[in-house]
């Protein structure tokens, strides 16, 4: 298994993913390790966005991988694996929040978490980079102010890069609802970003 230095997202094409899922289903834990490697960053980020605590996000994402492995027989291999895995994670996170509440972290933890929650500015030019970093800070605050449904769909679409179909599968809602929820989420976010001359 690769170490932390190899922790970048490893893209798997659909056929390779299906092969790994089928091998894991037959009990090949090495194949499952490759699936975990390919999806762990994305899944951790999703858990972190929901529970806002690094340790919990780590535990919950690991639990989701364990649960998914034990339920692989019920997975339809004709479909992409990640939305199914995300759904397992989402249910686990919602149960966790129901039990522990959204304010489990201490104020010090929260400061550290929010620092970690920062978005990365991808620009190379230093001036552009500073501007993007400022924008990232405002964006993080604005996304944090959205109601949970809207925050979740923005993160799924723009940061988890899910398709409409994948979002519909995870949230168990029609694609039309995905589109209209995205419309309202962006409308609200644009309004919150107006003071920073975004969306105005």
């Amino acid at each position, binding site marked *: *298994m690769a*170490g*932390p*230095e190899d*922790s*970048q997202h490893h893209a798997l094409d659909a056929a390779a993913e299906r092969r790994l899922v089928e091998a894991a289903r037959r*009990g090949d*834990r090495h194949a*499952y*390790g490759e699936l*975990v*490697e390919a999806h*762990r*960053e994305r899944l*951790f*980020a999703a858990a*972190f*966005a929901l529970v806002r605590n*690094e340790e919990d*996000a*780590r*535990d919950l994402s*690991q*639990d989701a*991988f*364990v649960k998914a*492995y*034990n339920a692989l027989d019920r997975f339809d291999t004709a479909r992409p694996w990640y939305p199914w895995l995300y759904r397992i994670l989402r249910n686990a996170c919602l149960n966790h929040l129901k039990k522990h509440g959204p304010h489990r972290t201490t104020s010090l933890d929260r400061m550290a978490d929010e620092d*970690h*929650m*920062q*978005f*990365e*500015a*991808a*620009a190379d030019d230093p001036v552009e980079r500073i501007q*993007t970093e400022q*924008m*990232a800070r405002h*964006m993080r605050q604005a996304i944090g102010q959205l109601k949970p449904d809207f925050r979740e769909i923005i993160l799924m*679409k*723009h*940061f988890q890069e899910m398709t*409409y179909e994948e979002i519909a599968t995870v949230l168990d809602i029609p694609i*039309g609802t995905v*589109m*209209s929820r*995205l*419309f*309202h989420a*962006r*409308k609200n*976010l*644009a309004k919150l*970003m107006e003071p920073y001359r*975004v*969306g*105005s």
Partner: protein
Amino acid sequence: MPAKTPMTEETIAAYLDGELSPAERREFERLLGDHPEWRAEVASQAALMAAIQPLKVKPPRAAVWDGYWEQIDERLARRTGQSVMYAGAAVLLVTGAVLIILLTPNPLLQLGEALFFAGLSMLFALALRGRLREAPKDRYRRIRR
């Protein structure tokens, strides 16, 4: 999407996400010309999306991945081993109970044994259930004992 693209929240989202066909897109843009309020909304959301586009979530500290897979793998291995052990224990318990009850001549004693084994099975099931439920909640499971 219908042939004549309506101006709705859904189509605005689909337009911004590039989900409309070229024909639907042309029709939508033609309609936008007649609806300045929708045009402003589309421009506002397009600007927002352009601001989001260069951002990506910062990866967590490298330490988050220390032992990440190893702990998952350990749990998968432990679970498989435990399932075999529990299944074996259940088979032994039931077989032993049936033999003892059948070989006991006294019906009253048989009833007593049946009750005893039923109680034992219930305890076994409760312990199994408790273990399955408790395992993910053990906050110290990462500590090697």
